[in-house]
């Protein structure tokens, strides 16, 4: 195919931006985590794209991507556990209400 690298990079950039939007704008903590996942995926896509366009060694990007995916999974697990714990305390998942760090 003859897609220039730039298009993939722009795609990943837009996906990253979309994820950032979601993480910053929504009130629901879970949506924030979703946004973070989207950002993660955009980043990993970036790596793979660069591997595809011959900027990495054969296995480097795949390894990296595998590890990144694992870390992302672990992170989302912990994050959701936190959300559940916080929900139990605050009885809501509204990030605007979680202000005990205030001041």
């Amino acid at each position, binding site marked *: 195919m003859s897609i220039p690298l730039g298009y993939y990079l722009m795609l990943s950039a837009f996906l990253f931006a979309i994820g*950032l939007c979601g*993480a*910053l704008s929504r009130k629901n903590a879970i949506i*924030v985590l979703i946004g973070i996942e989207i950002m993660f995926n955009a980043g990993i896509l970036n790596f793979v794209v660069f591997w595809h366009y011959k900027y990495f060694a054969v296995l480097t990007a795949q390894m990296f991507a595998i590890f990144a995916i694992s870390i992302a999974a672990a992170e989302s697990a912990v994050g959701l556990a936190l959300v559940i714990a916080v929900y139990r305390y605050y009885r809501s998942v509204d*990030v*605007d209400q*979680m*202000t*005990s*760090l*205030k*001041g």
Partner: protein
Amino acid sequence: MDHADYLQHLTRQQWLIPLFPLVAAAIQSLLKRPARKLSAALTIIAMGLSCIFAVRAFLATIGGGEHHEVVRTVFNFTWFKFSDTASLDLGFILDPLTAGMAAMVTFVGFWIFVNATGYMHDDENFTRFFCFLSLFAASMLGLVISNNLLMLFMCWELVGLCSYLLIGFWYFKPSAAAAMKKAFIATRIGDVGFFLGILMLYWKSGTLNLYTHDPIHPGALEQAGALAQLTGWWGLSAASTIAFLLFIGAMGKSAQFPLHVWLPDAMEGPTPVSALIHAATMVAAGVFMIGRMYPLFTAEPGAWVMDFVMWIGCITAVFSATIAVAQFDIKRVLAYSTCSQLGFMVMGLGAHSLVAGQFHLLTHAFFKALLFLGAGCVIVGTHHEQDMRKMGGLRKYMPITFLCYVIGTLALSGFPLTAGFFSKDEILLATYHHSKLAWILGTFAAFLTAFYMTRQIFMVFFGRWRGGDEDRGHGQEHKSHDERGHEHHEPHEVPWNMWLPFAMLSVFALLMGWLGTPWFHDNLFHHYIAPEEVASESSNLVMGLSIAVALFGILLGWLIYGRKTMEHATDPDPLAPTLGGLFVFLNHKWYIDELYEATVYRFTATCGMFFRLFDKLVVDGILHAIAWVVWAISQVFRWVGDEFFINGGFDSGCESVRLGGKVLAKLQSGRMQNYFRVLSLGAAILLLMYFFT
């Protein structure tokens, strides 16, 4: 050395005479009280030393100069200089007048001090009394020896101060406190005139030294003739005006009418005080001062000053004598008698006879002191009883006192051949040659003198002892020792230290008269004091009439009071029914005090009230206004500066910090989504920087 040098030497040492008592007073004021024996010893020894020096000086002045003129030796020194020409001097003088006075004051004072040790024996303020007595003696002697009108005035004031202190010695008694104030104020009124006289003298003559023996800078009295040429006020020459003003001072100090009101009240003081100050010395200071300044008085012949002096003296003499007739307090009688005799002295001086006036002063000092000491003995002997109606028959109990008292009375009455007879006769003689009316009044006063003194003798010493008649309390004279539950003991004689002094004085009272009579060496005193004065022509009429009135007065006294003495203390005075209202009038001192109170006091009080109101409204008003202005200014400063700028500025500064903090605290919202937003914003900015650089 020859006599003149000796006199000069003595004059330089004149200041020792007042020095001894002054030192004694100073030491006593520092003593730890009580130190009775020491203070009495100090005083008496000091006075004795002064007496020795004074007598030495006196002896040196006897004999006069080669031509029987008066020898005056002076010693002047500068106190402080205003400029090369003007300065204030002080000085001592040694001349017959001074020496005679000094000798008399020290001698009489010495014996009075001895008497006072007995009189004040029970008093708890013994030391303070002798301290004041010494101070008084020092000031009186300073007055006598001074050659300078300023020094004389200073001592004059000091004497007034000591009189004030001693009259009010028992200051806790309200009557004594009132009396001390009255004395001081009344004499002060006279002192206004005195001071004006001093000022005028300085103005007209340029010096206050009396004699300087220096032709270039003559003393004031040496300029008397020149001063008589200058014009003064009220139609007088300068000399006479000054003399008049000075006489006003003498009127106050010597208790002449109308400033006499303080002398009877001064009897509130202890009797030795009355004897010394208000009989012999201080009141004589006025007369002495006239004698000292006599050249000014006589400088302008025909001026009305001398007539004024004579008439004031005459009025005083008669006036006080009438009051003395109706008094019941033993000391009051003597006080009015003193007043009357002072009137005599002044009358004599006013009749152009320095000799007569001064001679009577000297003799009067002796026998009046004698009488007062006698009265003191009587008071002590009757346990502080002073009302004559409660005495009587003391002849039996106090023979020595009685004897000496009789001698004094005879002298005062002018009984022939006593001292008082000669001196009073001189005065009446001089007055006779100037004004017949004054002479008649003076003779009448002499008659009254004999009468009331005889009355006193019979009331006190004869008849029945009336002291135990009625328990009317313990007399009027409060002592400051505690009550010892006096029953009415029988009166007793006083101890030796009280009767010895007046034994001494009575000798002089008897014999001194011979010094001043023309029958004995042609009036020694005249030659001594003022040989330049023309002796009055002797007149048998005058002498005969004096003897007659004296004897008649004594006779009348015996008739009314002696033949049938008072039986009871509550009996009325035998004279009272006869005179009726006049007696009451005389008893109340012609209501002069009440008159003064209604007029002068009320006027002064009103002025005082007016000024107090002025002070409160105007002065305080101004003060309050100023204070209010200051307060208002401070309020403005507070409001503008403090409130507005400082407080406001500070407050708004703090407020902005607080708001800033509040705003910045919003960053710490605790919402991690916000933190995330800030984070991404930062990343965007970094990207921006990458993009643009």
